[in-house]
């Protein structure tokens, strides 16, 4: 017989609500950057969500507590329904942020997005001059990016420039900052390469030396002082060179989620590399995926942690670092991120960093460009 007083039950798990949704609308992209973090098996993700499916995802995301929508890819402008998606997000009260190569941001397209209520534009730059930039992007794009950046400012949008730093452009940081100033950028994000996807494959050719890093940090410090109050300069340190790991995504399933082109939902954009059960908006409501799916539960909180994380004072600061990095480097996603100097696997990172310091290797690396993705068309 059941007792009269039941055990206190938690109807909804005590899970925080997500603030941000990264919508990777397509993996198609006109650029071929060798540091791309998109999956290596691009062709496995060509069955893109339809406009109606994205609209449903946005409604569900809003109900779940999402406030910011980051539209990315691939190149989100390759989705012809981008303005429709932006309009839907705006009507739901979401803050919309377009993260783009700017290729395809024509005046007509920009006006359309402005009318749809797009809040903010982030344009990627590969370098501060055409020859290097076009070589890194694998396609002539530099001049078109500058034209688009000026257009963004003319239309009154706030402009952020995104620059992924690595061995081949980190020495150009001063020039990049000058260019950003000329373009009237409001913010610039100088972020060192994160080694996932194509970037991991090309890691040995991309890792900068410590001497390069120190020079760049000096330039950034001076620029911050000079540009104070005019342009925000964000500098994301390379985690390979840090003592402690990055607090990846602010914690697994804690603040953000990613929906990839074919509707899979991930705690971070690269979590598809982990041997975990899938969760798709085509099969489950977003709220169930966030709150209850085995995928999102797997590394939430601190209970899953091994030592040295389990007993570490920083376990609620960096959450054990990045699960994908742990898996890629050690084969076990539940180990401490090897970037951490306390990790028993730290030697794996230290070796790569030491190799990058050997001057003889500089410039000699061969990089594998990310290939084109011939996708099924989306509506």
């Amino acid at each position: 017989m059941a007792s009269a007083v039941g055990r206190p039950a938690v109807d909804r798990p005590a899970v925080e609500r997500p603030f941000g949704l990264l919508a990777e609308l397509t993996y198609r992209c006109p650029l071929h950057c060798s540091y791309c973090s998109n999956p290596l098996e691009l062709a496995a993700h060509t069955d893109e969500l339809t406009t109606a499916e994205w609209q449903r995802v946005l409604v569900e995301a809003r109900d779940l507590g999402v406030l910011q929508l980051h539209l990315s890819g691939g190149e989100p402008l390759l989705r012809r329904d981008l303005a429709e998606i932006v309009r839907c997000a705006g009507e739901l009260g979401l803050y919309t942020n377009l993260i783009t190569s700017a290729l395809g941001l024509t005046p007509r397209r920009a006006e359309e997005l402005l009318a749809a209520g797009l809040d903010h534009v982030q344009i990627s730059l590969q370098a501060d001059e055409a020859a290097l930039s076009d070589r890194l992007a694998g396609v002539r794009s530099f001049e078109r990016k500058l034209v688009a950046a000026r257009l963004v400012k003319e239309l009154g949008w706030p402009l952020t420039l995104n620059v992924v730093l690595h061995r081949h452009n980190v020495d150009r940081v001063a020039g990049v900052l000058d260019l950003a100033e000329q373009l009237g950028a409001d913010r610039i994000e100088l972020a060192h390469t994160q080694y996932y996807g194509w970037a991991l494959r090309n890691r040995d050719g991309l890792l900068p030396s410590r001497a390069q890093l120190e020079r760049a940090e000096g330039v950034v410090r001076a620029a911050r002082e000079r540009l104070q109050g005019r342009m925000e300069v964000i500098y994301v340190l390379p985690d390979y060179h840090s003592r402690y790991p990055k607090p990846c995504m602010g914690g697994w399933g804690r603040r953000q989620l990613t929906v990839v082109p074919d509707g899979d939902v991930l705690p971070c954009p690269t979590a598809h590399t982990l041997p975990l059960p899938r969760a798709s908006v085509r099969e489950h409501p977003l709220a169930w995926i966030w709150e209850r799916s085995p995928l999102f539960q797997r590394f939430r909180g601190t209970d899953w942690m091994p030592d040295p994380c389990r007993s570490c004072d920083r376990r609620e600061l960096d959450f054990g670092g990045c699960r994908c990095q742990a898996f890629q480097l050690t084969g076990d996603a539940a180990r401490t991120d090897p970037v951490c100097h306390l990790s028993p696997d730290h030697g794996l990172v230290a070796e790569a960093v030491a190799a990058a310091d050997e001057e003889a290797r500089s410039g000699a690396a061969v990089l594998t460009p990310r290939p084109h993705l011939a996708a099924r068309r989306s509506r």
Partner: protein
Amino acid sequence: MRSTTPVQTARGADRPRLARSVRLRFDPARGRHVLLTPEAVTVLNGTGAAVLELCDGRRTLDEIGTVLRGRYGSVDDDEVRAFVDRLTARRWLEIGDAEAGRGQRRGQAGRG
């Protein structure tokens, strides 16, 4: 582009307004007002939201204080000023000149 010194203190005649990239919204999921910026969400308390709702580029800081006093009785002007200064330093608020007030910035109408 008008340059603002992050450490400056707002004066009573200043007319603060939200920057172009910033949105003030009520979040029904959390039951709180939030400030949305390119890469951040700031959850506001009731007073913070009340101050920001009045930062429309037309009201002066003094006028904002008067409205708040009418609503809440007593208001600590220094606290309001410190709050405005903090957000101005982050470039989430902009201070319009007294004479250039009246919210006449190109491309501002109807957004946010």
